[in-house]
């Protein structure tokens, strides 16, 4: 049994969550604070990536990123990054389709914050950025955990898009979900069971520790 697919999977999930977190943080923050008329449009747009079936979405991403499209050409010629059939491409695609799972809980969390608390931070002379990191985020731990956990889990489990634009290259784009899928396809059920069990085991351990940590934390704050 090879651990490579698992490592790839978790690397992908972690990277995706991290990047997505950085990207969506300002977006979710903006959405939670604005009353602009375009807010519903942006909200609807950010939900769209999960409407299409993953493999179909993968199909379109494949098109968009291939050299014949301007996006793909730009990445390859200007930035020198080849996205298709590479780990980098997987990260980009994962970020795209996991977007709603990160944005929505974060926005929710921001919206349920006590507004006076944020204002108190501004009055203390702290910038929006400081307020975001030192006041807003620490006071919405459970929203934060939901956002990250759902994104992580969904990225680990997703395989439609990954399979499509990754090309199933061992060590590069053959993540655990794709590996297990392949085993089921060739009816190598016993291997599939083992891999699934390992996957579930590791994930359960990770999830459990996060949730236990969270429970401790909220007890500390006297919630």
């Amino acid at each position: 049994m090879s651990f490579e697919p698992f490592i790839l999977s978790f690397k992908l999930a972690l990277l995706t969550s991290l990047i997505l977190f950085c990207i969506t943080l300002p977006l979710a923050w903006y959405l939670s604070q604005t009353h602009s008329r375009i807010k519903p449009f942006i909200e609807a747009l950010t939900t769209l990536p999960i409407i299409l079936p993953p493999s179909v979405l993968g199909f379109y991403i494949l098109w968009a990123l291939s050299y014949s499209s301007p996006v793909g050409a730009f990445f390859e010629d200007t930035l020198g990054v080849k996205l298709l059939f590479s780990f980098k491409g997987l990260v980009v695609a994962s970020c795209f389709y996991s977007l709603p799972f990160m944005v929505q809980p974060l926005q929710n969390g921001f919206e349920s914050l006590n507004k006076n608390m944020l204002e108190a931070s501004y009055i203390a002379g702290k910038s929006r950025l400081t307020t975001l990191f030192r006041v807003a985020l620490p006071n919405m731990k459970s929203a934060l955990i939901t956002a990250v956990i759902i994104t992580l889990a969904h990225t680990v489990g997703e395989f439609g898009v990954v399979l499509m634009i990754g090309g199933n290259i061992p060590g590069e784009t053959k993540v655990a979900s794709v590996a297990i899928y392949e085993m089921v396809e060739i009816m190598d059920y016993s291997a599939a069971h083992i891999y699934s069990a390992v996957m579930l085991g590791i994930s359960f351990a990770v999830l459990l520790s996060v949730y236990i940590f969270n429970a401790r934390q909220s007890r500390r704050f006297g919630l």
Partner: protein
Amino acid sequence: MIKLNITKKLHGANGAMQLALNIDIKEGEFVALSGKSGSGKTTLLRILAGLEDAQGEISVADKIWLHADKSLPPQEREIGFVFQEYALFGNMTIEQNLLYVTKDTKLANHLLEITELKEMKKRYPHTLSGGQKQRVSICRALMKRPKILLLDEPLSALDSAMRTKLQNELLTLHKEFQTTTIMVSHDPSEIYRLTSRVLVLDSGKIINDAKPTDILLKRQGSQKFTFQGELLEIKKVDVIFVAVVAIGQQLVEIALSNSEATSLQIGQKVILSTKAFAPTLS
């Protein structure tokens, strides 16, 4: 120092209400803001703090805080604000709440000492009582040694001993740092003790702008003592009637004649007066 001339539409108690204020406040003044519930006191403070927008102009010293559409962000207005609803940072201990504002451990300890919170500085806001939260909120507002201090009923949830203590503290700090202070308060003696000017709001307008003495002082020095009070009770003790009158937070019992006893009604506002010979203070 503070020149404020603003208007803002609000939903008042009886439909739409226009907040329209034109105030000048001198540097170092301690101003009381008083007035009926819903008259716009909190809103005024929030506009001053830059937390709410309004039409008009605000300038402080020689800086313009609000003009047309330009509004100086709250971060750059050197103010302290005690919120009516505390607004503590739930993720930080009491001490961290203070140090978040300024990393001045000495000042923090000093303030926590005064407010009798020192022993509990490692606790989180969720486990505090209402009055404890209010005290933390006051401490936090003072941490920045602000030029302008905005206090929204800062002592309402405190017992009278703590209240008096903090009043004195606020006064000391005010004098020490020459802080310009605006405080919402409903308590006349607090107003008199602390402030040098009272603004009374009603439905978004200033209906009174005077010295506390002008508003509160009932009688100028006189040979005749006069107090307003409330008649609480008329008791029959043996053959005479005794009236219990509340004057401020004190009670006085006064012997009444029969006719007085029947003509007075419980709950009535009464004037108690007496010829006083040589009142003495001791």
